């Protein structure tokens, strides 16, 4: 498959006669958010123009990609007009006037938020998530809400109750999940950035599959207030972007203490984009051998070349690191996350909001029918699994045991980071797979997240960055660091990105 070189940096486009900003107006969707912000700041384009270009792009490719659950054209144009006023007054920031998508489990006041579930098909939140508010304050433009696996449970976006999302690099393949909509929207040029959520890899794995940057921040760095809860001790909101600088800017705008989230870390937020010009000479990186088990050969080849590049850039690579509990992380996760989910999803009782069941005979019948019809199979499976793991007689054997092994996994990371600045692993052990390939076997689907899950269990940060291609399909590299090491992760990722240029490639969808 031919790779399409992004055009904005090529000389011929820059010198195009008709466009003082260097790129034909109808190709502005190929820019990164920070490049677009420069054009807005210099008044070369307006946010309304930029937003219309994105709405047109959505019109052109959405029937193939299907990354949106809802498109909020009116909201977007109003946001853009307001942003243009701010910019005219010199009051703009890096995200002012930049069109974006929010995953549909992030609540938006007055804008339908469905979690891609029949249960919440008509739910209109009466308040904003903290991240929604912070982006509004930053002057963001909301294009719409991103498709996802129902209640963020899945690794392919095939579990959306509405429609699957397709991978912009190859429409026969899944975009990953559960933030498949946000990853595909950014990869397809439908949004300049997106926010997703990551409970076991739901930002990083789709970022890897769609060839974009995805960040799972340290637990507690970004407020979860207004994120529809799945696994409360694991969930984090984070950015999906076209390059590392954008990821740093979006994280900076959304991170920070929030009294509405009692697990929020009360600490000054780092200036994440500050370290991006630094080099990585002398950086100590490790490649834990357990993450190479069962790795697809082609993915391993890409990863090896990426690691060699990091070494060329002056980092030392330790191949002797071992995190022996890695192989237990999957079992720990599939006990802890469903246990928390079974409690969190108990609120969907069809009384205060949610699916309407007109034919119920009693209040209990109404609840059972609402939950039977409102939830998809995977959601039911996890609620059942969690309820079993927490039930009398099984709690010690499942939940408590998993919570203890969780401690061992955390300690192994702590030990590794005494000697190392970061760990480098594949993001996904395989290339993007085809529709239906895994959806009939839950256990094989669960294994998609084998390299990302340990990070959530330990509460530490990690990001996925494009590291190459196999037969036209993107492959991501995961960089994992200790708690609150985001500035260093961005520094490593940026050095690698600038040395390789994978981030300049754009998906061939038109």
């Amino acid at each position, binding site marked *: 498959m031919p790779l399409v070189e992004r055009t904005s940096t090529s000389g011929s486009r820059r010198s195009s006669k008709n466009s003082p900003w260097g790129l034909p107006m109808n190709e502005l969707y190929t820019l990164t958010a920070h490049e677009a912000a420069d054009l807005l700041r210099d008044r070369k384009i307006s946010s309304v123009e930029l937003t219309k270009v994105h709405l047109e792009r959505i019109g052109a490719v959405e029937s193939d990609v299907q990354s949106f659950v809802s498109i909020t054209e009116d909201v977007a144009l109003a946001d853009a007009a307001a942003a243009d006023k701010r910019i005219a007054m010199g009051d703009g920031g890096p995200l002012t006037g930049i069109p974006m998508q929010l995953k549909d489990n992030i609540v938006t006041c007055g804008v339908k938020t469905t979690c891609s579930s029949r249960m919440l098909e008509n*739910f*209109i939140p*009466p308040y904003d998530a903290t991240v929604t508010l912070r982006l509004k304050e930053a002057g963001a433009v909301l294009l719409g809400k991103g498709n996802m696996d129902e209640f963020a449970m899945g690794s392919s976006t095939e579990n959306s109750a509405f429609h699957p999302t397709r991978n912009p690099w190859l429409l026969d393949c899944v975009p990953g999940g559960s933030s498949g909509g946000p990853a595909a929207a950014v990869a397809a040029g439908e949004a300049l950035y997106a926010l997703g959520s990551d409970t076991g890899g739901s930002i990083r794995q789709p970022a890897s599959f769609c060839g974009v940057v995805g960040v799972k921040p340290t*637990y*507690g760095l970004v407020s979860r207030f207004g994120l529809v809860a799945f696994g409360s*001790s694991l969930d984090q909101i984070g950015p999906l972007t076209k390059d590392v600088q954008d990821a740093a800017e979006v994280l900076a705008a959304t991170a920070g203490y929030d*009294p509405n989230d*009692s697990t929020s870390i009360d600490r000054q937020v780092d200036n994440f984009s500050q370290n991006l010009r630094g080099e990585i000479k002398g950086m100590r990186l490790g490649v834990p051998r357990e993450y190479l088990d*069962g790795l697809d050969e082609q993915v391993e080849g890409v990863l090896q070349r990426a690691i060699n590049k990091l070494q060329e850039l002056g980092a030392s690579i330790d191949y002797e690191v071992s995190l022996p*509990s890695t*192989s*237990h992380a999957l*079992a*720990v996760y*599939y*006990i802890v996350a469903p246990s928390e989910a*079974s409690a969190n999803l*108990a609120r969907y*009782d*069809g*009384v*205060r*909001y*949610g*699916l*309407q*069941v007109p034919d*119920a*005979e*009693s*209040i*209990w019948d109404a*609840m*059972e029918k609402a*939950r*039977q019809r409102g939830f998809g199979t995977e959601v*039911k*499976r996890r*609620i*059942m*699994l969690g*309820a*079993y793991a927490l*039930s009398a007689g099984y709690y010690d*054997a499942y939940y*408590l*045991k*998993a*919570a*203890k*092994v969780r*401690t*061992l996994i*955390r300690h192994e990371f702590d030990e590794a980071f005494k000697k190392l600045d970061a760990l480098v692993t594949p993001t996904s052990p395989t290339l993007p797979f085809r529709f239906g390939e895994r959806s009939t076997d*839950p*256990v094989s689907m*669960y294994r998609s997240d*084998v390299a990302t899950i340990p990070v959530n269990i330990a*509460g*530490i940060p990690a990001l996925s960055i494009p590291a190459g291609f196999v037969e036209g399909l993107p492959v991501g590299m995961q960089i994992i660091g200790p708690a609150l090491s985001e500035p260093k992760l961005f520094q490593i990722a940026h050095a690698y990105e600038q040395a390789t240029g994978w981030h300049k490639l754009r998906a061939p969808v038109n």
Partner: protein
Amino acid sequence: MIIMSSAHRPWSPNLALTLKEVVHIASLVRIGMSEQDLESFRDELSKILDQFEVLKTIDTENVAPTAHPVDINNVFKDDIATEPLDSEAVLSNAPRREDLYFRVKAVLEE
């Protein structure tokens, strides 16, 4: 990867779920199910539970459990009254309502 033989079950007498257990879990979580749903969940959940057997081989004798990845305890908020959500906006999502109340079927049965 989690690989575990079914022969290795140190303390679980019969791991595969019985239909009765699945019916019980479904009633705990209040999800209506057909006979067919119950059968397929029995099969799938048993296979998933098999994958958890590996944990039983790990020594966690003196290990404290982690419920949460950050060590924060007793987070309090100041007791300051704030504006509540708008009742109309909240009630507009209710499947059934009456005035400023959610309407439900009778809770107490005869």
